[in-house]
């Protein structure tokens, strides 16, 4: 299937929202949604890392793992195309290691270049490595924009758009949730529901609201 940019943005933010319909990144959604400030910081950090991680994993998959005419073994070392190794099965291992290393580098780089940005995002970065949203978007890009190891048309642009828009969608629901939970602190919630249970019920209601977007036609 081919996607337009605008269509992809609407799809990733509302219809296939990362948290409420794909169930990715639930840990920060439940853990960091108690205050508006930290929710916004976490959302920005996730959006940032998601976009960069998608970029890097796309490059790695295209030029190293998939046995196509773009593979470095083919166009630099002149290996005959049938001898180019098919390393696509290494996807999971390579992606998680790259993401872990990438998060470390981003953290060090931001710390050096922009102390203000580091103050805003710094404490959330280490938490992000094991956030399934990041690996999730990287794997999802490969599933959606590649066919049999070959990139579909516009796959690079689509990858970046999907990663960024998914991050925005994640930030949106995280901030909405934080707004609700700040009010919830003052509400008289039945005792067994205090804490996580009511957060899940709220998430369920939000998810029902987001189901409404599924009626959108984005052809």
């Amino acid at each position, binding site marked *: 299937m081919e996607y337009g940019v605008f269509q992809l943005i609407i799809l990733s933010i509302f219809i296939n929202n990362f948290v409420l319909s794909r169930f990715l990144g639930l840990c920060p959604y439940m853990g960091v949604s108690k205050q508006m400030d930290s929710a916004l910081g976490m959302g920005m950090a996730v959006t940032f890392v998601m976009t960069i991680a998608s970029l890097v994993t796309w490059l790695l998959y295209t030029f190293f793992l998939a046995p196509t005419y773009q593979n470095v073994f083919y166009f630099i070392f002149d290996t005959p195309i049938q001898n180019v190794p098919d390393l696509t099965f290494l996807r999971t291992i390579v992606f998680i290691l790259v993401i872990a290393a990438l998060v470390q580098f981003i953290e060090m780089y931001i710390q050096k270049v922009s102390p203000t940005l580091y103050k805003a995002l710094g404490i959330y970065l280490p938490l992000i490595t094991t956030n399934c949203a990041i690996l999730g978007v990287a794997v999802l890009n490969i599933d959606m924009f590649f066919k049999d190891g070959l990139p579909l048309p516009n796959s690079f642009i689509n990858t970046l758009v999907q990663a960024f828009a998914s991050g925005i969608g994640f930030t949106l629901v995280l901030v909405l949730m934080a707004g609700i939970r700040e009010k919830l602190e003052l509400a008289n919630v039945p005792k*067994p529901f205090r804490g996580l249970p009511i957060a*899940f019920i709220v998430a369920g209601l939000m998810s029902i609201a987001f189901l409404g977007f599924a009626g959108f036609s984005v052809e």
Partner: protein
Amino acid sequence: MSVGAEFFKGIYKENPVFRLALGLCPTLAVSTSITNAIGMGAAVIFVLVASNTLVSFLMWLFAKTLSEEGLNSINKIRIPIFIVVIASFVTIVEMVMAAYFPALSESLGIFIPLIVVNCIILGRAEGFASKNGIFLSIVDGLGMGIGFTLALVAISFVRELLGSGQLLGAMIMGEGFKPVLLMILPPGAFLVIGLYLAGLNWIDARKKQA
């Protein structure tokens, strides 16, 4: 703690999903049917037991063979080591599932590679297997894995029964039953787990009073 206690703590007292709230993403995503839940549970049990075994063996091997200094430097990179171990086993599961259970592999989709970032597995490697012997680590992995599977089955039982009127793919509810479509859709997962958690809190509070 005895072996039995190590095994059973993962099932009720320290159930990864209901008590520790770990591994929520796959729990909510694949609990649309009991078949999916069992498939996911089996994959997690395999990865958990295998990674617990290997991590515990590696730590024992390092402690046997390395000097104090070597151990210190290993300690600094232990998390990446655990991640590589886990990712290797996940890759095995991915390939086996795609080869022998293509339908299951299709319906679990991206949540199979995402077992790598399931916090239960890294949590047990770091919190238990790296500090305990091989046998206890296997028992711990089995207990936690079964606890995770039971939680998944408990959630998918409600969702599948109400959402499609079926259990394990067989029609259970009578003719006149209208499926509550919401239960199969994403909101159902959030609502069911919220109610389960509240129910457990309520039981705990009752126990404390008694």
